[in-house]
């Protein structure tokens, strides 16, 4: 078996509004569009993902929150209807997904070896969270690639931000090591928004884009500063200022997916491809790609 590799990482935020705006058959509510710049950004990301031909997609979602350890979906086939508890008016999505249980178990085991509390989720009636589903739909609406779903342990909130993100770094290393041993060509997806300040009132209809803009200027400026660093490949500098970004912009990257993804890629000082940026109910969202194949850091299919 050849050595497996992380072949790319995507910052792939999960506002359910993007699914709603697209009107896929799986989602009950109908819209007149909206959030096009972000949805078109995902169209570009879908095209590059397709070229990469990964064996597996791994997603770390802030909406599967666990207190005792880092959990992994561990049932081969999961299906059901996911209703967003915050925005049930726009996201009621019927899903079916296939889990790469073997890889999930390997990462779970490796995380345990590295000192983390880790657990497999084996209950077939488990309801997959809307963050996982939205990110996966937006990046690969065909649902034809097996996935590994990883929970967001609440350590960055329960401990200090730095202590929590240190755990996510370990989780990323466990992920990378397990992928390499598996022979899989893997794409890692960080399901995170950037600045997370949002409006407290939803427009009617929700897709009224005349009401959509950054919730505040400072948050927007922070997003641009971070994106600028990422576009220039200044990854170390990004992580140096990440705690301030998290604190001042209430950034959702606090939940760990962003750190986990970069750790799984071994923090390459590589310029990220910005597919697009936009706000959703005031929050800042960027779809970005780090293509390790294009950069010569991973092999092509």
């Amino acid at each position: 078996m050849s050595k497996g590799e992380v072949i790319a990482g995507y910052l792939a935020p999960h506002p359910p509004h993007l699914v709603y705006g697209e009107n896929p058959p799986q989602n009950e509510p109908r819209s007149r569009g909206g959030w096009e710049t972000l949805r078109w950004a995902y169209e570009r990301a879908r095209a590059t993902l397709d070229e990469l031909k990964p064996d597996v997609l791994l997603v770390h979602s802030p909406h599967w929150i666990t207190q005792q350890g880092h959990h992994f979906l561990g049932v081969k086939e999961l299906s059901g209807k996911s209703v967003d508890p915050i925005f049930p008016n726009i996201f009621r999505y019927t899903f079916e997904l296939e889990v790469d249980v073997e890889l999930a178990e390997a990462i779970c085991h490796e995380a345990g070896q590295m000192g983390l509390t880790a657990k497999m989720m084996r209950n077939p009636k488990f309801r997959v969270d809307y963050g996982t589903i939205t990110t996966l739909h937006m990046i690969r609406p065909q649902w034809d690639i097996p996935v590994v779903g990883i929970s967001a342990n609440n350590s960055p909130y329960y401990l200090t931000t730095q202590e929590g993100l240190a755990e996510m770094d370990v989780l990323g290393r466990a992920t990378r090591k397990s992928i390499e041993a598996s022979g899989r060509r893997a794409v890692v997806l960080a399901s995170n928004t950037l600045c997370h300040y949002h409006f407290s009132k939803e427009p009617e209809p929700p897709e009224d884009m005349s009401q959509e803009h950054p919730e505040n200027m400072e948050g927007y400026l922070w997003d641009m500063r971070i994106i600028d660093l990422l576009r220039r490949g200044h990854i170390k500098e990004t992580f140096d200022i990440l705690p301030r970004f998290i604190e001042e912009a209430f950034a959702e990257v606090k939940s760990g997916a962003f750190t986990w993804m970069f750790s799984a890629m071994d923090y390459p000082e590589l310029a990220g491809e910005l597919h697009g940026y936009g706000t959703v109910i005031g929050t800042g969202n960027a779809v970005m790609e780090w293509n390790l194949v294009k950069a010569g850091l991973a092999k092509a299919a």
Partner: protein
Amino acid sequence: MESSQSGIGKSRLNLINLMSVVSAFLIPGSPLPYLQQDNPPWRTLAEAMNSASVSLARSEPDTVVVYSTQWIAVLDQLWQTQPRLEGSHVDENWHEFGELPYDITIDTELTAAIIPITGTVGIRSKGVNYNAFPVDTGTIIAANFLNPGSLRQMTITSNNVYHSWDITKELGRLTAQVAGEMGRKVAIVGVGGLSGSFFRDIIDISEDRIARESDDAWNNKILNLMKAGDSDALYKVLPSYIEEAKVDMGFKHLAFILGSIDEQFSGATIYGYGPLYGAGGAVVEFHT
């Protein structure tokens, strides 16, 4: 935390509230005592829930009103308006212990009456009526323990994370007021924990205990004040307790209860107190 109130007509409203609230309970929303009733540290809480259930039934409410800290809302104050909620839920953290079946009948009339009224105090409320809406673990635990067989209809509301203690107390007050004006007798149930420190690693569940001795001391102090009906002393220490013991969701579940009974209680029965993977939980009935 303000314990006083003012305004024209408050006395009349107090009376209406006290007449409508026939019982009031504080319970933990953890699924552990329900799913693992044979585990000794959690059996105490399961038995306490059963005792509270008997007392609730004796109070003969028309409707059980639940405020659950685990139903997180962000934009509005959400209320269940689907007439019947039926299904099975798997807890996000404790999935290995099995499913939580539920069958809940909503008091749609009472809920519909409350929703527009909250606007009078600046709280925007919204009903949710969707199949497969993810009912939270805390609500299901309240329903299954305190309303077995789904004999009574329920009104269920959420925890808007941006709402303060005082706003939440106001919600409780308004809920009781509307119930009183409609002639509904209601049991109020605030669902949430006490001290919030928990074990992050896998433990032997048969040896569960409160994670920190200082938390245990704080929890006991608060429960004793409730038991004695010493509301003045309780109000005085609550801010320190909430901060030092990392109380679940700022103890807003207590705010909802206190609002509903106009902060008037002569004492409380502590049916049980115990650990929930290191965190504290208690089953308490307030006597008005």
